[in-house]
């Protein structure tokens, strides 16, 4: 009945959680996840990501609000009745059981017949390529292998929903990238719904259909990785995802499509995102790769003189630190193409950008 694709498979509606009754770890959290979707909760440490997962898994009860799973409210449902596979940050494998016993555990709890269990366990081990490790204890596996076991254990009982809490946090970078693709592949192959937690924005970008950026217990923005990068709605998101130049200024003229902002005595033309006609201050963000070096003035409404402070050679691009509009350390990334050499620190250059690449966001300091 509840299995059509439009309906939210997981739904948080205005969920709040306070552990001590005074401070809120999660505030007014609302999020809908469709069946088969891969949604990531992204946010800095302490932003309440784990708390959200714990409430969904049933280890913590929301202080207010309701969580829905497959169309049913689950606040009163015991964790072991929710049929959710969870992969924990430090794997939480059972150290006193072999790998095979670890995988058999959820099946035994469901009173599945012995030979059936054996087959499922072997299949799950196959899936993560650990057939030869069935008889070993978790302590005798490498971090990456333990990680795979944890994932296999969360999948072996074929749950409808999988939660992963920073599952790759303890792995080195190479292994982490490898595992990211493995996780994404598995999720698409098995077509399960996935809610994933990380504080690594790169990981969130690679894996997710949608990313929910969290800050201090609240959701800042939920969008596809591309939209988050291109169209951040809040200063926090703009800074958290990728690199951004940040310039504060005073709004002198506002229309829905464009506003003029006075910065250090000069006027910058910007696209108003999170400011309206009543606001007097704003924070402009400009992506370093959207800044043109010595551009044709006709094409770029924003062109300003800048003094080069520093040039860093990064291989495929040059990273230029410049001073303009009264700000130092303004970052510009120039692709390493023939013709851009010859700039030296101390040179005066012109930097330009489009109106749409200069987003006027919240957070300008009122004087």
């Amino acid at each position, binding site marked *: 009945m509840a299995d059509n694709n439009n309906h939210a498979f997981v739904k948080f509606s205005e969920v709040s959680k306070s552990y001590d009754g005074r401070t809120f770890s999660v505030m007014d959290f609302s999020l809908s996840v469709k069946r088969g979707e891969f949604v990531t909760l992204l946010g800095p440490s302490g932003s309440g990501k784990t708390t959200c997962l*714990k409430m969904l*898994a*049933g*280890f913590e009860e929301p202080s207010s609000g309701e969580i829905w799973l497959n169309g049913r409210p689950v606040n009163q449902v*015991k*964790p*072991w009745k*929710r*049929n*959710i*596979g*969870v992969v*924990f940050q*430090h794997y*939480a*494998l*059972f*150290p*006193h059981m072999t790998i095979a016993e670890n995988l058999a*555990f*959820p099946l035994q*709890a*469901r009173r599945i017949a012995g030979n059936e269990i054996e087959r499922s366990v072997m299949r799950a081990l196959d899936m993560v390529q650990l057939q030869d490790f069935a008889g070993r204890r978790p302590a005798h596996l490498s971090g990456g292998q333990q990680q795979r076991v944890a994932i296999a*254990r*969360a999948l072996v*009982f074929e749950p409808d929903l999988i939660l992963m809490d920073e599952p790759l946090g303890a792995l080195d970078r190479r292994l982490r990238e490898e595992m990211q693709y493995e996780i994404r592949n598995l999720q698409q192959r098995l077509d399960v719904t996935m809610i994933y937690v990380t504080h690594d924005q790169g990981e969130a970008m690679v894996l997710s259909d949608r990313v929910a950026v969290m800050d201090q217990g609240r959701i800042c923005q939920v969008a596809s990785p591309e939209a988050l990068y291109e169209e951040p709605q809040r200063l926090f998101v703009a800074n958290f995802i990728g690199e951004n130049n940040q310039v504060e200024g005073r709004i002198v003229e506002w229309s829905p499509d464009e506003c003029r902002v006075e910065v250090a005595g000069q006027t910058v033309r910007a696209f108003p995102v999170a400011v309206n006609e009543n606001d007097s201050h704003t924070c402009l963000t400009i992506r370093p790769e959207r800044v043109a070096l010595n551009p044709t003035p006709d094409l770029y409404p924003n062109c300003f003189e800048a003094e080069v402070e520093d040039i860093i050679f990064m291989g495929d691009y040059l990273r230029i630190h410049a001073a303009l509009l009264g700000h130092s350390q303004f970052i510009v990334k120039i692709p390493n193409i023939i013709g851009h050499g010859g700039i030296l620190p101390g040179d005066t250059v012109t930097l330009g950008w489009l109106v749409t690449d200069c987003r006027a966001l919240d957070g300008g300091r009122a004087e």
Partner: protein
Amino acid sequence: MAKARTGAIMLALPLTAFILVTFIAPLGSMFMRSLYDPLVADIMPETVAALEEWDGTGLPPEQVYALAARELERAREEKTIGKLATRLNRDTSGLRSAVMRTGRGLKRAGGPPWSETLPAINAAWGEPATWQALARTGARVTPVYYLNAVDLTFGSDGGIVRQPEERRIYTALFIKTIRVSLTITLLCLAIGYPVAYLIAHSPPRLSRLLLVLVLVPFWTSLLVRTTSWIVLLQQQGVVNDLLVRFGLIPDEQRLTMIHNMTGTLVAMTHVLLPFMILPLYSVMRGIPAVQMQAAMSLGASWPRAFYRVYLPQSLPGVGAGCLLVFILAIGYYITPALVGGQSGQLISNFIAYHIQTSLNWGLAAALGCVLFVAVLLLFLLYDRVLGLDRMKLG
């Protein structure tokens, strides 16, 4: 390299010496005492030597009587005859007065033939059993204390026989001590496990408070803790008063809960409880809460998750706590002495009795050694079954 090693050894020297003097030496001397008893052989060397020639049947020849008379006379002069009498009496009851009387009688007695004079002073010298006892106790190295410790003794024919009915107490006492220690261990486990679980998995503030509540009695004098149980449990004590107040028992039928086995069980469980809780707590603290969450998320109800995931991981603590409590209980002395009354006495109380009162140090040493070996065996068994390296003491 070598210098550092020498330095390290030098640093450990005071400790080594300390252990040697306070632990190894007393243990060694106790072990010696349980096997080596030169008293009779020292006081009557020639008689004992002569008796070795004797075939052990009938009465010894005149020459042995003469040696015995001379050495008894000398023992009386050197005032060692009392010890001799006590030692012989321990072997064969009645010999104390026989020897003491002989000592006094020898002053006035005539001369040879001693094989007539001695039995005339005291009839015991006419009995082969007396001479057999002298020959037996004359051996410097003797298993007799170990035999006594397990209710055996030498028969009149020199063979090993069971003690007479009324003196068979130690085997039963050992069994009782082990049974009581096991009971105390199980009581401690039953009470300590939930407490340790609470301490390990409560919010920090509550957990600290609980830990202090466990430790405060631990820091309180043992004597105070034990005697406070007397206040609580005696006939006019708090518990009985409450029971009577609430009409659970009539006033004239107040319960006897102290100076018997109940008192020993209650007080010892209380005294030894921290030794169960602390190792349990230290192991449980190492089990992350996420383990139970993982088990539950995988479909196991709380009891199942506890039984399959938590309990097995806490077993090293259970093993350590039980071993610790059991070993402490089996040799515990002061608490049963204070609150155990007659029926609540354990083997260690009898060892103390033989050391302090009856002065039968040989038997005390043998009982101690048997206890020591029993504990050692238990330790090895534990190592075999569970592995000492898996044990965590905190």
